[in-house]
């Protein structure tokens, strides 16, 4: 009977209902992470394996992208600077742009695509084929084994990947600068490090931790709550990427506001 009245309600309130139950669900999912992370079993082996997987999966693409972003960005910035005869500022400009924004953002977006989709697909296919149920009936906590380990792994790995991307982007930039402006490597990197402050590096690491956490938790959530059937697997993978990317941009905006406030305050 309860269902019948539910059926008769207008679509808009039904969708609103769905939205808020979804939100509450997601919130409970995140909350559970912070409840379960403190208690054994800690599954260190699985965390390590996941860290390795994440690095291994995203390294080739991140290396390539980081390097190319460095070259292209340097090349594109040169004309504007040379109008003022200020091409000697290139290293500082690139350094600030890469460390503050491009490194973390590019890395996070690539990781969302590569890692997020594979986590979403993997967990939802485990759900569909009842592997998660199988864990539950043998008294193993699937949330702990699957979700907590993966979220820890993405959270820890992202800052490392970001630093790696930063480095490669700066290398790419150096190659371009050294060819055009004949600057030595040491001069280039002295300028690079003079341009950035401790706050830049620190906030970039904190931001990356949040990006990593977001990718992990969103993908696990989408996988864990996927609908039945093989179609659900594709949807979960897709939704993991879209949702992660969306949240990453929001977080980027927020962090911009916060860091600016700190810098000026």
């Amino acid at each position, binding site marked *: 009977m309860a*269902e019948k009245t539910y059926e008769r309600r207008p679509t808009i309130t039904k969708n609103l209902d769905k939205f808020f139950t979804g939100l509450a669900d997601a919130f409970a999912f995140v909350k559970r992470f912070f409840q379960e992370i403190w208690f054994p079993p800690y599954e260190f082996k699985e965390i390590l394996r996941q860290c390795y997987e994440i690095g291994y999966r995203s390294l080739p693409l991140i290396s390539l992208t980081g390097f190319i972003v460095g070259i292209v960005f340097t090349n594109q910035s040169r004309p504007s600077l040379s109008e003022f005869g200020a091409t000697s500022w290139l290293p500082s400009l690139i350094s600030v742009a890469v460390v503050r924004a491009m490194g973390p953002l590019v890395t996070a977006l690539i990781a969302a695509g590569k890692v997020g989709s594979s986590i979403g697909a993997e967990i939802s296919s485990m759900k569909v084929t*009842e*592997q998660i149920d199988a864990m539950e009936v*043998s008294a193993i906590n699937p949330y702990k084994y699957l979700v907590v380990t993966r979220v820890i792994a993405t959270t820890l790995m992202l800052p490392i990947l970001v630093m790696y991307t930063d480095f490669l982007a700066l290398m790419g930039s150096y190659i371009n600068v050294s060819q055009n402006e004949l600057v030595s490597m040491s001069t280039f990197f002295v300028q690079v490090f003079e341009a950035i402050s401790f706050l830049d590096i620190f906030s970039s690491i904190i931001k990356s931790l949040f990006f990593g956490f977001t990718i992990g938790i969103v993908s696990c959530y989408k996988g864990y709550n996927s609908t039945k059937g093989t179609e659900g697997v594709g949807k979960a993978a897709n939704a993991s990427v879209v949702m992660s990317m969306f949240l990453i941009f929001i977080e980027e905006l927020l962090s911009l506001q916060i860091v600016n406030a700190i810098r000026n305050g």
Partner: protein
Amino acid sequence: MMEKIAEMKGLTKSFGDLKVLQGVDLDLYKGENLVVLGKSGSGKSVLIKILVGLLKKDEGSVMVMGKEISELKLKELNALRLKIGFSFQNSALYDSMTVRENMEFPLVRNVKNLTRKEIDTKIEGLLDSVGLPQSINQMPSELSGGQKKRIGIARTLILNPQIMLYDEPTAGLDPITCVEINTLITQVREEYNTSSIVITHDLTCAKATGDRVAVLLDGQFKAVGEFSEVFENATDERIKSFYDYNFIQ
């Protein structure tokens, strides 16, 4: 009368508007093999999932080994689950792990302080008894359907369960493999002294493995008893047709 190891009374379960179970009463006695028959979608899988707490019942009572499932805390439920082996309809092997890791996974997480040797002996012994010792290092994707079923059964046996729940152990297998699985189920009961519920569509399997059969129709058990009782005295057309369909002369 024999001792009851599991007992369901007035059990109901719906998904939205879909009423799946509508007042199920069923007893499982210690040491017996009970076969549950019913057509696809009748709620057989739902029934045994409620029995291990994977799904929540709506109404009625479900007692397993003297404990009401819905009232247990997670810790108690997990302790009880260790005594129940659940063989999934599609085997549910962990496909990122080898056969050995699949079997080791529940074992090392639930039984502390085992030596490498004890673990290996146990795994090898069980693989021997399901007839697949050579598959120990294979991945699930390299196994056939029948082999997966057997590994799935071996995996559930590793914790020495007292109750075994088989969800369609022979579905989708050729007749010869079916006979092998049926023999395995009977053998498991004798060797490990389990009480079991076997879900199937397959009357040959039912006849071979079951002490009693129960037919699930319209969300209730319409006939429960020995094989001959249920089918020879069947008044319900659908039970008769179930029989005729399976044994076309």
